[in-house]
């Protein structure tokens, strides 16, 4: 329940310096902000602030800090871990109006953009100069760069071109106290600790981003993709290792299993081999001569690894069509199931077969289907559990299913989130992945930036009390916290 007296107090304090259109508190206006891309978690924000200028952001933060009001920053609201779940007793700070490309310098190969600029829009404005912004999360037509910074978003090309952290030079923002901070610079490094690396992926807990300088890369002359079919998922997994072992770093290397290709094929008609147990998309980019050479090598390796069919994109339209199915994987699940739950674990690639078998066993155990799409090159799995949220039993089973899979990821030496973040969704699994002393360091880092704990509180890092209550022990690389103790 919203405390209406507190709501009045905070809304009036903000309206003292913000135009009327920038402060929302009536339910019909705040309702659209109740969740982000993880719709299973909803909460009505007490107040929504929609600043239009940097000084307004600063003033909002100063005001909230002085009043002790929690602040949750929000970009495009496409996040998949509930990182922008609003505070019931605070201000949801929407950066949606920060949509300006401030500067694009083709010689310096940088773009300075406001946080609300969409990921794909950066490449659009850079295209006339033969440049683009490399990280391409599947949600790139909708997600904003501010959110990409918060989550350290990846995409299908990050094996070769890196994540957000590798493609951002500078983040400007404000701490909860309203202090302006510049992390990084337009040079390749900055003096002191690498606070830019710490800011990227910090899920909006350390500072509010108001401007981002991104690196632009020259668009490769050409790109082609090989689509390889396999009659067994484990063989497909081994083929991934074989490609890397051959000294090839593909521009993209993605895997989809049969249930996934069947789901997307009805939706986008990408031309996938529906007989295959799994398909791999393996992309080469560069000069025409280089690509021709590399595609030939990729085909040899994939064939030797047991591919049952190989198809190479003949032109750009066909290449984009091959990718369209992969990029549409999530919405396609929405067509074949009332709801789907997307997981985001990363594992060492060599454990793929084992983990996919484990997921198969979980499908049996919980009676739910789970197609798999996989950033195979960098070990990032996106199993998609299909369920019906109207059946509370199914939602519960889905959550239990997901928890088991994430803990399996930790067990095989991986992580509970490769690119979607912890948010509110994976707080319990953080207790399994990290020991108390490590979580305590995270809290200490948070206090360094935000001593009162007002910026996006309760997200990303669980309290030690929560972990104690959750009761599952931290396991690291197969070792328990205190291996010297006998356990029976």
């Amino acid at each position, binding site marked *: 329940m919203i405390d209406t007296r507190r709501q009045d107090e905070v809304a009036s304090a903000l309206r003292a310096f913000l135009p009327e259109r920038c402060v929302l508190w009536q339910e019909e206006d705040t309702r659209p902000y109740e969740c982000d891309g993880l719709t299973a978690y909803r909460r009505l924000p007490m107040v929504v602030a929609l600043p239009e200028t940097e000084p307004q952001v600063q003033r909002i933060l100063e005001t909230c800090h002085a009043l002790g009001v929690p602040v949750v920053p929000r970009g495009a609201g496409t996040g998949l871990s509930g990182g922008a779940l609003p505070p019931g007793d605070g201000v949801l700070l929407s950066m949606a109006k920060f949509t300006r490309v401030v500067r694009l*310098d083709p*010689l310096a*190969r940088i773009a300075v953009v406001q946080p609300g600029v969409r990921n794909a829009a950066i490449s659009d404005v850079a295209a006339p100069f*033969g440049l683009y912004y490399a990280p391409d999360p599947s949600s790139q037509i909708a997600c904003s760069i501010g959110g990409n910074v918060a989550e350290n978003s*990846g995409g299908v090309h*990050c*094996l070769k071109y890196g*994540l957000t*952290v*590798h493609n951002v030079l500078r983040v400007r923002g404000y701490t909860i106290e309203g*202090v*302006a*901070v*510049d992390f990084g*610079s337009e*040079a*390749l*490094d*900055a*003096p*002191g*600790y*690498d*606070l830019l*690396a710490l800011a*990227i992926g*910090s899920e909006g807990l350390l500072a509010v981003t108001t401007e981002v300088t991104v690196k632009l890369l*020259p668009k*490769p002359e050409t790109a082609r993709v090989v689509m390889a079919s396999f009659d067994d998922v484990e063989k497909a997994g081994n083929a991934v*290792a*074989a490609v*890397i*072992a051959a*000294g090839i770093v593909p521009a993209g290397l993605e895997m989809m299993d049969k249930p996934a290709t069947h789901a997307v094929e009805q939706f986008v008609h990408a031309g996938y081999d529906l007989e295959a147990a799994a398909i791999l998309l393996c992309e080469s980019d*560069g*000069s025409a001569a*280089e690509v021709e*050479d590399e595609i030939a090598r990729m085909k040899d390796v994939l064939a030797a690894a047991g591919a049952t069919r190989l198809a190479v994109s003949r032109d750009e339209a066909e290449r984009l069509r091959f990718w369209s199915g992969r990029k549409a994987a999530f919405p396609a699940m929405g067509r074949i199931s009332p709801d789907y739950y997307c997981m985001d674990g990363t594992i*060492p*690639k060599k454990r793929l077969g084992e983990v996919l078998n484990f997921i198969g066993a979980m499908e049996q155990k919980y009676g739910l289907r789970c197609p798999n799409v996989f950033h195979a090159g*960098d*070990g*990032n799995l996106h199993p998609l559990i299909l369920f019906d949220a109207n059946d509370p039993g199914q939602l519960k089973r889905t959550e239990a299913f997901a928890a088991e899979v994430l803990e399996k990821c930790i067990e095989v*030496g*991986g*992580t*509970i*989130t*490769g690119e979607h*973040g*912890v948010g509110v969704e994976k707080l319990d699994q953080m207790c399994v992945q*990290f020991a108390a*002393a*490590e979580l305590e*360091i*995270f809290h*200490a*880092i948070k206090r*360094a930036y935000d001593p009162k704990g007002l910026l996006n509180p309760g997200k990303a890092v669980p309290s030690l009390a929560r972990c104690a209550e959750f009761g599952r022990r931290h396991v*690291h690389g197969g070792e328990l916290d205190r291996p010297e103790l006998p356990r029976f």
Partner: protein
Amino acid sequence: MSAGDPKAFSERIRGAAAEKRPLRIRGGGSKDFYGNEPQGELLDTRGHAGVVAYEPTELVITARCGTLLSDLDKVLFEHGQFLPFEPPHFGPAATVGGCVAAGLSGPRRASAGAMRDFMLGAKIVDGHGQLLAFGGQVMKNVAGYDVSRLLAGSLGTLGLILEVSLKVLPKPRAELTLELELPQARALESLNRWAGRPLPVTASAWRDGELGLRLSGADSAIRAAAEKLGGETVAPDQAAQFWAGLREQSDPFFAGDAPLWRVSLPSHAPVLELPGEQLLEWGGALRWLKSGADAASLRAAAARAGGHATLFRSRDKPAGVFAPLPPGLARLHRELKNAFDPAGILNPRRLYPEF
């Protein structure tokens, strides 16, 4: 318990913290010259050595801090892989821990990325003597703050780096070095223009009107690029020696006693009009300057150009090694140091005199 046992490090640090005794964490000592004057009782990390895990198909290597950087190179080389950021060793004693703590990158930095870009995970002993692990052995990992990247370049002030996992890549199939004659302003303009085109330039160095360019990749690609770029091809042996000389600063440019400044700028920043000899790397983003000019005016010039200046090598360092931080960032630095090492005993003042 041997000297290289993590538990021994942990006890040593716990004891030092209780008594507020500063510790000077040191591997092979090849980078003793870098940063402010090392202080405190020696804590030698070399006993904790060895490659822990290496799967070439995972593109990840995990090694203990005391592992010789040259041993790591050797293991990777046997599998046709390498550390793409080409870290400078600055001597045969260089260790993996020192490489990460210094966070320095070599000639390939502008195209491949920096030391921090290849950091995937780390185990450390913090200032309380606690053994902690962050990140992991996978390429994508956003669970918790990116503490392992924060360690790159922290000069051991946040913790003793026990073990690291680094991303590695296959070595380029072929390389070719070109030499062109160009004055500095034109070299800068050309380097930036080329960097905006899909050319396989992986290193560049300009000095005294001569520009060296290294191309890497498929044979077909580098030959086609060489034709577009022009210039003379350098013999492979001579080229390898040239780039190694830059990376290790054994090149004659780096000889002599004049203070050596490392000026990091946006690559397109115009020619720095400062007294002293200059050598440019990283497509113009790194400018080495041998100059006795006063620190304040040099740092002001670097800041005006959008970057910062580090006193990389010098007999004395009265003005501090690293550019002073604005107050907001300085406070975050102190608070972060305090989060990891509240007693302030790990490599005190090596990075900034305030902590």
